[in-house]
């Protein structure tokens, strides 16, 4: 006689296996998205998105451009400067230019400037210096890329959460239908609804703990093997937080569904 199975896992083993397998997959995807975002955030924190624009002038352009670079190299917070191709610049400006075709001569030279985030970086001071060398030369901070990433991250997470909730909603609904006789007979022989609810919650809490314990090594192995990924120091904290939130949401879902289901089973 397996008292634990009768109390906490009254349905078929297949139901629990399916619940575990689907949740392991979702947790790995969820952790992958979170880890990727945090990694990007960390990279973005160590640099800022800064662009340098140098309009093409006819007189001594290359000499003057070198002078600008000399000025920039004197600045400690600038790590490197990379030139963007004309094609890339046209692509960036395509929304503004619509169908206007620009000749390469009038397109300014644009550089991606890598800057240390830890050091203070005063754009105005540099701009004052470089505009004296070439009129219209400009260095500017651009924050567009990060906000796009942020939207992408949140929409990804939102879609995944909806899928997780829907999957678990239907799994739990099906599960409750399967244990209908168990619930009914328990009630007919005097078992309180709260005890049934508590036992089912304990059962699913154990399953989710198992799911998270299995997901961790799988996720680590996958990341190590496929991406040679180095985990962030606070990954364990994120993992535990995800575990707590995930558990609370699924168990709340189960409790609400179970309560509604039991209420509709029979009047008394």
């Amino acid at each position, binding site marked *: *006689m397996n*008292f634990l199975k*009768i*109390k906490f896992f*009254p*349905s*078929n083993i297949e139901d629990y296996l399916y619940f575990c397998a689907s949740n392991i997959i979702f947790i790995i995807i969820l952790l992958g998205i979170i880890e990727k975002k945090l990694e990007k955030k960390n990279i973005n924190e160590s640099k800022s998105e800064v662009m340098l624009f140098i309009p093409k002038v006819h007189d001594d352009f290359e000499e003057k451009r070198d002078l600008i670079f000399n000025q920039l190299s004197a600045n400690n917070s600038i790590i490197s400067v990379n030139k963007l191709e004309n094609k890339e610049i046209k692509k960036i400006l395509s929304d503004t230019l619509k169908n206007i075709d620009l000749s390469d001569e009038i397109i300014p030279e644009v550089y991606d400037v890598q800057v240390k985030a830890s050091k203070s970086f005063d754009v105005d001071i540099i701009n004052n210096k470089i505009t004296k060398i070439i009129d219209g030369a400009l260095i500017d901070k651009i924050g567009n890329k990060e906000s796009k990433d942020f939207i992408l991250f949140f929409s990804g997470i939102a879609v995944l959460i909806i899928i997780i909730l829907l999957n678990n909603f239907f799994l739990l609904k099906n599960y409750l239908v399967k244990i209908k*006789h*168990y619930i*009914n*007979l*328990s*009630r*007919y*022989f*005097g*078992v*309180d*609804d*709260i*005890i*049934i609810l508590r*036992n089912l919650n304990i059962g699913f809490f154990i399953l989710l703990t198992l799911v998270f314990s299995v997901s961790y090594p799988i996720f680590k192995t996958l990341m190590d093997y496929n991406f040679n990924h180095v985990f962030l120091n606070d990954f364990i904290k994120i993992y535990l937080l995800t575990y707590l939130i995930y558990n609370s949401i699924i168990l709340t879902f189960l409790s609400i569904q179970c309560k509604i289901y039991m209420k509709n089973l*029979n*009047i*008394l």
Partner: protein
Amino acid sequence: MLARVIGLIDKPAEGNLYLLGKNISRLSRSELSSIHNEIGIVFQENYFINEFDLETNIIFPLILKNEKKNDIVQALRELLPWLSLEKVIKEKVYKLSIAELKLAQFARAIIGRPRILLLDNFFKDVDSGIQKKINYLILALKKIGTTVIVFGQSPDDRTVNFNKKYEIYNKNLEER
């Protein structure tokens, strides 16, 4: 229908039902559970959980009510020889005969020592040998203060002793 109402499965269509001195229409869900606790019911249809074996089907309400494991095992050991269910106790319920299932239902209903035992159409397809065994158990239950209510077809008066018999006539219960 009457068995289901007294068994607190269905609500009475009208009027009040008093069980163990309480009006059931005024009770909360947990208060109803405590009254359910005092009622053992044998259903007309064989109502079991197919995933469990017979033993689990008989004792699972006690397990959920956190009865001591030793007490449950002891109660089962005392009950099974009376009902000749020892040989099939580890079988899945779908492998059992109708008579075995009836006896199993009876075992499940009385293992918790209820104050009221409801037998819904229980004696319909039960042979006289089993009727006698059941009668001994009913007598034993009556001695410890259990009220036994039998619904439906009446068994042979020589095998089962009843204190009172009623008939529903014109929506009224009339003593026979």
